């Protein structure tokens, strides 16, 4: 039974999240798999060193062998012995717009993935389960494209300047007002790159003497921004409110590490949807904690904006909360709006401060006008202001697709992580060989998926990640499900024993070992 949290009325709808535990046999076999791969890796390295096998890796020239080594052999071990063997599942070249269906250039390798050659054939109409195309705006025809083309001919392709110098167009102002209205906040600011939005603005908000409490599985941009800021970082277990509350209590009671002074600011960094787990943040509880301990909340809605909520306004609307409770609402335009860039929304004083002090505003080029127009058109479409109901239909289609897909996969017996309503669906593969096999088999059946393994995930939890889209019709999903079923039988991926671990019973222990305590 999924553990449904009600928590004293904080949640207005059931919160179904489950991470089924790895079956023990599968775990042991996974380690055996990695052990065998490591042994063979050492054997191949030995053969390469003794010139029995040709070494395709980068090596120094003969004259340089006496100097300090240029390449660290051991750090490349994983890359050349494990990653190279299944490298054809990543970086696949596509040659059409990555909508619900995509065309891919076929490539073969004659030397076990060290080099690729194109056969010249184009594999057409591959069902695309890998793009973050949640609302299906990755199109090259339609109103968004026409508007963007008009703006391109009017404003040109780039602004060639930062926001503070000459790069502030009226389009940017229009976009920012629209974003603020969309989110329900006072003011917003848009930046050219989603990663840069996080990494350049967190240092502007916190500094030395502040405390950042960030989730275990936060994205690289948040981690980089937190490190660049110079604040003390403490990590709480993923989506675990007891862990967060304990850290908050300890921080307030003990203060800064050596001087015991009170912290200048406590900032909680969470994401709306975590793309590797498919879990949704427990926002009502986080906001309750934030209010109780008087700290600030930074919500990164990279994946959840446009994808959650009855009208697509993100995770705040999904839970029925007040956007003013979240101090800094950040998001990206890459996933649901089919454009590029990021935004930060919040109170007017905050955004005015960021306009002056943010690194992105001062040094980075502002957004390109056609991209801005794409965002404006797609956002208006989602809000329904362009006069059609296309936006609302898309949001509903995405929710239906999500629920249908997850339900069918669970019924088939796969282990699926994450929340019932998240459009990111990780399907557990566990064993290293199945990573490559799954990617290749799905491509043979004309479905493109993204597979992830160690070290991006914990060592036994390699997975295939499906990203659903409003552009997927039910027929496409049925085809995909049929193929996934076949591949699941072929590779024996149906591990689920339908014994789901209720979330609150997941043991929360004191063992959080951090690398440095500043």
């Amino acid at each position, binding site marked *: 039974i999924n553990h449904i949290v009600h928590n004293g009325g904080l949640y207005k709808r059931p919160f179904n999240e489950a991470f089924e535990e790895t079956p023990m046999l599968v775990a042991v076999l996974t380690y055996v798999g990695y052990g065998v791969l490591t042994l063979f890796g050492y054997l191949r390295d030995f053969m390469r060193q003794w010139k029995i096998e040709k070494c395709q890796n980068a090596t120094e020239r003969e004259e340089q062998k006496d100097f300090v080594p240029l390449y660290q052999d051991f750090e490349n071990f994983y890359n050349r012995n494990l990653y190279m063997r299944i490298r054809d599942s990543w970086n696949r070249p596509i040659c059409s717009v990555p909508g619900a269906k995509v065309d891919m250039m076929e490539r073969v390798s004659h030397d076990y993935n060290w080099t690729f050659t194109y056969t010249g054939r184009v594999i057409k109409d591959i069902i695309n389960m890998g793009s973050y195309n949640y609302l299906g705006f990755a199109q090259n025809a339609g109103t968004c494209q026409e508007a963007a083309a008009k703006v391109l001919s009017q404003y040109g392709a780039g602004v060639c300047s930062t926001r503070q110098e000459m790069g502030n167009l009226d389009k940017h102002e229009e976009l920012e007002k629209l974003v603020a209205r969309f989110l329900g906040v006072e003011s917003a600011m848009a930046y050219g790159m989603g990663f840069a939005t996080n990494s350049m603005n967190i240092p502007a908000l916190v500094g030395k003497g502040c405390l950042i409490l960030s989730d275990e599985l936060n*994205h690289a941009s948040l981690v980089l921004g937190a490190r660049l800021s110079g604040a003390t970082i403490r990590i709480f277990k993923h989506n675990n409110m007891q862990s967060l509350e304990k850290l908050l209590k300890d921080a307030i009671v003990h203060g800064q590490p050596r001087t015991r002074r009170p912290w200048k600011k406590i900032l909680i960094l969470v994401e709306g949807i975590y793309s590797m787990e498919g879990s949704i943040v427990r926002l009502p509880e986080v906001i309750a904690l934030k209010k109780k301990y008087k700290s600030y909340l930074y919500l990164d809605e990279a994946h959840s904006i446009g994808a959650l909520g009855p009208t697509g306004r993100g995770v705040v609307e999904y839970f029925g909360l007040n956007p003013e409770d979240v101090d800094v609402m950040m998001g990206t335009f890459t996933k649901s709006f089919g454009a590029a860039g990021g935004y930060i929304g919040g109170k007017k004083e905050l955004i005015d401060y960021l306009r002056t002090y943010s690194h992105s505003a001062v040094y980075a080029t502002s957004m390109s006008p056609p991209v801005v127009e794409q965002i404006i058109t797609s956002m208006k479409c989602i809000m329904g202001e362009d006069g059609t109901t296309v936006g609302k239909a898309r949001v509903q289609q995405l929710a239906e697709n999500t629920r249908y897909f997850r339900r069918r996969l669970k019924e088939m017996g796969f282990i699926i992580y994450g929340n019932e309503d998240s459009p990111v669906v990780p399907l557990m593969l566990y064993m290293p060989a199945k990573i490559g096999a799954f990617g290749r088999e799905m491509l043979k059946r004309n479905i493109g998926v993204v597979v992830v393994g160690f070290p991006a995930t914990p*060592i036994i939890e390699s997975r295939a990640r499906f990203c659903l889209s409003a552009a997927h019709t039910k027929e496409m999903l049925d085809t995909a499900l049929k193929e996934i079923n076949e591949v699941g039988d072929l590779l024996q991926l149906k591990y689920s024993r339908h014994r789901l671990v209720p979330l609150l019973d997941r043991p929360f222990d004191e063992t959080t070992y951090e690398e440095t305590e500043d």
Partner: protein
Amino acid sequence: MNVGVAHSEVNPNTRVMNSRGIWLAYIISVGVLHIVLLSIPFFSIPVVWTLTNVIHNLVMYLLLHTVKGTPFETPDQGKDRLLTHWEQIDYGTQCTSSRKFLSISPVVLYLLTSFYTKYDPAHFVINTASLLSVLLPKLPQFHGVRVFGINKY
């Protein structure tokens, strides 16, 4: 494989020994080694047990205390490049549960071996030397210590 990567876990190697099922996999692999050695016809039982103990300690020493760094690139700018896997476990925190497990298992194997070799003096010397070679590097005082500069870089 680095899809959407670099969360706050800078060195995944530190968590490997805590993952689900790895202790069981370790015990099973020692068991398999023992059975393989037992099936060789011209080894007597004491010899098999001593061989199990010695090979287990040798492999443990090689994997945990000789090999340094990580087999993949980590985002921590090479802080762990000079540390052996034992030193990397749990970011250097001493006396965690995996460390305790990995310290106790050679001792348990040693006790079993001494029993099955009937406390024969020659076997005793070999087994004790082997046990010491694998227990000493695990002491907290030996964290980061490189005796005589061996294996320093």
